[in-house]
């Protein structure tokens, strides 16, 4: 293996992906969630006479649209369960609990929720439970705070329900959050280590000889590992660009500004960066530029003109 100039420790960092997705509910879920707000649990009746809780919009057997809602009991029977000894962030209870499937009285299917129980010895399939309503209800599955043990027999038959309530809930927000650990790999770690010294180091493909900046550790065209490190730049050529006139929410840059593709000298593909130090309407393809660093920044803040004559189009058109 070709020795590399000091392989720094591979980097890693948390990556949190979080977004409040919204959902329009449609008629059936709207009735179900509004019902929970009003302490009413609704199911839907299928063509073969079963009552599904939670309700669905389309019959799983016939595929037909189903809209016959029915109110079921707020007491039910645990059909199966799993003990959760260590609740995690955003789970319904912050003390150990059982995940349970509960068949509510009058329903033919079971609802997934949680059971507040003293310990796994206090839970069994077939045990009777009842809904514990949340104090503040908004039209969400969490309007059922949890289930709790209940001594009592099975309640009555499901009762037809119009699904109509005052001020129905028609949409909900469903925040999604994923916690990753992101590791950029050895090639990018080397690249970042060099950038910390304000040097740009790419890697050459042993097969096609192209220099990749930033390096990915492999050539995407040849499918072989890239090993040889090649310092490129610091100067480069603007191959193409656009003038950004709308302010991005997450960026603290005044518009208009130029977003450019820059082929650093010695690199075989362009990287993307902002151009400064020149009025935005004077930037052009072929402009020669050089990085401008700001203390504490991992990447060049922007690139500014070097003052050299523009590069000839033929010299960079293969990189556009």
């Amino acid at each position, binding site marked *: 293996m070709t020795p590399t100039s000091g392989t720094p420790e591979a*980097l890693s*960092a*948390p*990556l949190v*992906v979080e*977004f409040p*997705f*919204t*959902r*329009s*509910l*449609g008629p059936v879920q709207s009735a179900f969630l509004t019902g929970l707000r009003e302490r009413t649990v609704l199911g839907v009746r299928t063509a073969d006479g079963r009552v599904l809780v939670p309700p669905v*919009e*389309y*019959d*799983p*057997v*016939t*595929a037909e*649209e189903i809209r016959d809602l029915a109110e079921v009991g707020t007491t039910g029977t645990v059909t199966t369960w799993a003990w959760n000894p260590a609740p995690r962030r955003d789970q319904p209870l912050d003390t150990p609990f059982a995940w349970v499937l509960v068949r509510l009285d009058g329903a033919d299917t079971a609802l997934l929720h949680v059971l507040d129980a003293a310990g796994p010895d206090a839970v069994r399939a077939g045990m009777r439970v009842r809904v514990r309503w949340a104090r503040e209800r908004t039209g969400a599955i969490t309007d059922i705070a949890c289930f709790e043990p209940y001594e009592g027999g099975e309640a009555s038959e499901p009762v037809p329900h119009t699904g109509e309530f005052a001020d129905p809930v*028609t*949409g909900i927000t*469903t925040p*999604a959050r994923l916690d990753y650990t*992101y590791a*950029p790999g050895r090639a*990018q770690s080397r690249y*970042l280590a060099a950038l910390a010294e304000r040097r740009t180091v790419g890697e050459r*493909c042993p097969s*096609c000889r*192209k*220099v*990749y900046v930033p390096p990915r550790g492999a*050539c*995407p*065209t040849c499918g072989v590992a890239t090993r040889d490190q090649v310092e490129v730049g610091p100067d480069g050529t603007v191959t*193409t*660009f*656009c*003038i*950004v*006139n*709308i302010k*991005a929410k*997450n*960026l603290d*840059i005044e518009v208009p500004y130029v*977003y*450019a593709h820059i082929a650093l000298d010695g690199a*075989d*593909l362009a990287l*993307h*960066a902002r151009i400064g130090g020149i009025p935005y309407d004077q930037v052009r*393809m072929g402009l020669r530029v050089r990085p401008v660093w700001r203390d504490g920044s*991992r*990447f060049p803040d922007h690139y500014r003109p070097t003052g050299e004559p523009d590069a000839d*189009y033929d010299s960079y*058109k*293969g990189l*556009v």
Partner: protein
Amino acid sequence: MSSAAGTTKEPVAIVGIGQTRHVAARRDVSIAGLVREAAQRALQDAELTWQDIDAVVIGKAPDFFEGVMMPELYLADALGAVGKPLLRVHTAGSVGGSTALVAADLVAARVHRTVLTLAFEKQSESNAMWGLSLPVPFQQPLLAGAGGFFAPHVRAYMRRTGAPATVGSLVAYKDRRNALKNPYAHLHEHDLTLEKVQASPMLWDPVRYSETCPSSDGACAMVLTDRAGARRAPRPAAWVHGGAMRSEPTLFAGKDFVSPQAGKDCAAAVYRQAGITDPRREIDAVEMYVPFSWYEPMWLENLGFAAPGEGWKLTESGVTELDGDLPVNPSGGVLSANPIGASGMIRFAEAALQVRGQAGEHQVPGARRALGHAYGGGSQFFSMWVVGADAPGA
């Protein structure tokens, strides 16, 4: 080649097509309700029921776009798929096209006789821009937004070809006028003029506001079947004469963003299957994926309708108008409706509507063969089909 293919593969017919009316926000329906609406319309067009469907193939935008990770799980009952095979296809913005091609292959291979295929997007409940710009550690944030990703490539096209700056506005004006004839299109801008397009704000110079696609909610569905199914169909079928997909990396040394190699290879493959040697003469209508207006002249070259550097001349001379001799996006295209996950399938479906003679007010008179085109990612996934009014080999 084509006769040998005719004996080994089952000819594939499109006998049902359904779309929702694409709009900014469909707050009245769930995602299940939205896809169901398109699927029901496709079944009605084919005069079939859920029981007649042997398998379902679904496509959607990348998961982060709307936070639906497993549409195949969530939508099985809404799509009558219980007890049937249900597949999900995933190729970024080209997904609607590749989803239709997977469905077509299932019929061509005689795995299934009648397949329902559909694609959807509810942009109103999501944020595509957020989904495209996750804050990945150690990486420089994208400084520009979606249009900013594509605008430099438009400038590169203008430099390479010498195209005048007005060409983009001509495409936008044409597509938005075509959309007035398409009841399913999202944008119906009755008062739009060419002057208004040209005076609209420059967002990512050289791309103007009126030259960019809208953000839409919508779904599209098709019923694909074999020869026996086509014989029973109540309305004329469209026949698949060729279908192909090609991929390449997003960024690599030598990548040509103006005319990607994967796009050229995909077009060559689909023409070869269809026996087409001169697409400009042999294809009557094109539905291509044009999210920013300048992509029309760029794709005209990439798809072989014009020599390199000449695409903008077809646009400028009116060839791609609805009454030109190569109408492009008679439906109004992506510029007039963009439920991203469905947009590729809408192109495929609109191509099929043209050769079935079912395109209504935006029908190209006498269209016998049409191209449907989709692309996605950083111009890295391509999918296309050529459909015809006659069964292949007939």
